[in-house]
């Protein structure tokens, strides 16, 4: 049984949505700290551009496209949930999860290629940041996809439809983090 406290909304915003925004606020500073450190170091080490030149911008661009598309299906799922169509919402969420799997698959290929060519996390500062930042992001993709699977399972049965929007907000955040990572790690040569 939910406590009375959970059902109140003094701000006018539902409690779950408010909490997701605060989760994102705490996540922003985690990635913010990591990326700010990277940018400061990168400015002091022009030679890191040589390492950055190894990363494959086209594969990165493809993954950006995959992730953006998965965000589109997350929005469509929200739209369906608003209509009360849980089944359709679940279908769209499964599309988003499929996008996450493609993203992770491409990432695995990239890392396999780079590691097999001797560019490992201990190679130099750029690669340390490259694997740490992309790894932390991939961890968020995995976590989001797992939670999304639970939300989709419930939504298919017409339960807890409001959660479709909440996981969607989180997914957009994962997307936006990548929008920062892609230029910083791939495009800036």
């Amino acid at each position, binding site marked *: *049984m939910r*406590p*009375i*406290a*959970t059902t*109140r*909304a*003094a*701000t006018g*915003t539902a*409690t779950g949505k*408010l*909490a997701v925004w*605060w*989760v994102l*606020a*705490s*996540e*922003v*500073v*985690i*990635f*913010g*700290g*990591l990326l*700010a*450190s990277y940018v*400061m*170091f990168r400015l002091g*080490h022009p030679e*890191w551009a040589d390492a950055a030149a190894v990363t494959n911008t086209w594969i990165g661009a493809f993954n950006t496209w995959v992730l953006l598309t998965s965000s589109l299906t997350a929005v469509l799922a929200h739209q369906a949930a608003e209509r009360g169509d849980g089944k359709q919402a679940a279908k769209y969420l499964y599309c988003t999860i499929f996008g996450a799997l493609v993203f992770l698959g491409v990432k695995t290929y990239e890392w396999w290629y780079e590691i097999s060519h001797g560019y490992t*996390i*201990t190679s*130099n*500062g*750029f690669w*340390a*940041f490259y694997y*740490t930042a992309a790894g*932390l992001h991939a961890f968020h993709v995995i976590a989001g996809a797992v939670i999304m699977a639970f939300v989709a399972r419930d939504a298919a049965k017409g339960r807890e439809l409001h959660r479709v929007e909440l996981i969607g907000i989180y997914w957009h955040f994962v997307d936006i983090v990548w929008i920062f990572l892609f230029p910083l790690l791939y495009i800036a040569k």
Partner: protein
Amino acid sequence: MVEPAVDLTHGHAHDDHADHGPQGWLKYLWSTDHKVIAMQYMFTGMFMALIGGFMAYVFRMQLAFPGMPVPGFGIVSPGEYNALVTNHGTIMIFWVAMPVLLAAFGNFLIPLMIGADDMVFPKINRLSFQVFFVSTIVILASLVVEGGGFAGAWTAYPPLSADSTYNLTPLGSTLWVIGVGLEFVAFLLGGINFITTLMNSRAPGMRAFDIPIVVWMIVVASILFMMSVGPLLAGAIMLIFDQTIGTGFYNPATGGDPILWQHLFWFFGHPEVYVVLLPAMGVVIEIITTFARKKLFAYRTVIFTIVATGVLSFFVWAHHQFIAGIDPRMANIFTITTLLISVPIAELCFIYIATLYGGSITLSTPMLWGLAFVAEFLIGGVTGIFLGAAGADIYFHDTYFVLAHFHYTFFPIAIIGTFAAFTYWFPKMFGKMMDERLGKWHFWLTIIPFNMIFIPLFVLGMGGQHRRIYNYTHFPELAIDIFQDMRIVATVSLLIMLAAQFIFFYNCWKSWRSKEKAPRNPWKANSLEWTTESPPPHGNWHPDRMPVVYRGPYEYNVPGREDDYWPQNEPK
């Protein structure tokens, strides 16, 4: 609402709204009730305080009587000494001050003071404690693994913390980082709950400026924590990678920089001071208004002041790094911001004094603790001015002056503030009154030795005594008799203070066993937690009779009223 305030709950409310979780002893291990979780945090924090206190006892004995076996520990080796001071700091801040002041009192007070039946996410609240509990086990395990506990100071500066060929504690230092990281995750989970609960679940009628200050303070502290800890979490991941897989984030040889850790650590570390300071200041406001029977002076100014403090606290961190090779122009900027932040804190002290002025003051045990907090914290604040000014700090850096200053801020926060809150809300938490006579003995036998410990350390610090030294007899200019005498005074005072804590435990046990039940509102205070039973049942109030708020929490001695207090939920 036609019933008078005192009838909001009734005797069998508990049966109507039973705990739907597991029963029996499991109820206490697996409960989602905010009050049970508060007690879990409280008792874990107190247990860790005993460990941290024992560590202080061992290393103070070594400093006063170098090389002699310490009763209960034995001969202290240099490595053990470093591990003891490191983990004393880590445990006292992250496993005592934070869980007790922020998590225990936050959990206990927020729902009760805003008239809610629980936190908005009870299961996340439980998860928060469980993660915290795991972190406790990890930090305790780090003390006993092969090689011993981490010994690179609680600030864990690389390269000492990052490379086990320097620190010689390959397991201890990694477990230390993991433990601290898990503890941060626990408080992030708890903090999201605190913030959302206050924003959304206030009792009907409670506007922003009707919220008791202590709740404001705890929630602002949670926001500060959330906004500052992220970069350090990222930094902790980098440190673990440096330790375990050999990356070079903090190693100049591979393009890293050890100063990065100092920035990330203190970007968190300085707001962290305010994360624990604000709840303690809030507690003292509740106590001072209740025992002075007077309306809080300038409620809104307090709110704006703590927001200003919170914002400023993000721009002072590099005052910890004046001798770390930062640009002197940057040191100037951080000197100015550091001196600026003393303005809002001084303002709060004036607000305390203005509230007390002309009040009818009762010197009960909680009030003594509250007043002691103001007096002692003032000394901590004033000595901070010297350290915030880059010129003076270059001399004082890493001396006992810093150490004494730090303890004059954190002891009032974590110990005096906690005892103030504990003695004030003890009737509500356990349904019994504490013994005032024992409480006052405990108070004086804690406060006097506390000053006797740290005043000599100020003098030693001004005399040039550096921190992190295992045995001062190796340094002729520091081994002089007068210095050694001051070290012995500090250690003996510590022994007295530690012994006095048995009075506190005896008082708790005796009060808890006493047959006399505490009334709902023993202090005749206004806020909502005093309108329910002591201790409150599951759900805090009867679900059909949740409180409604009509006014702010500090309406004492309102002209034209017969009673000198005016509960928040009493209709006009």
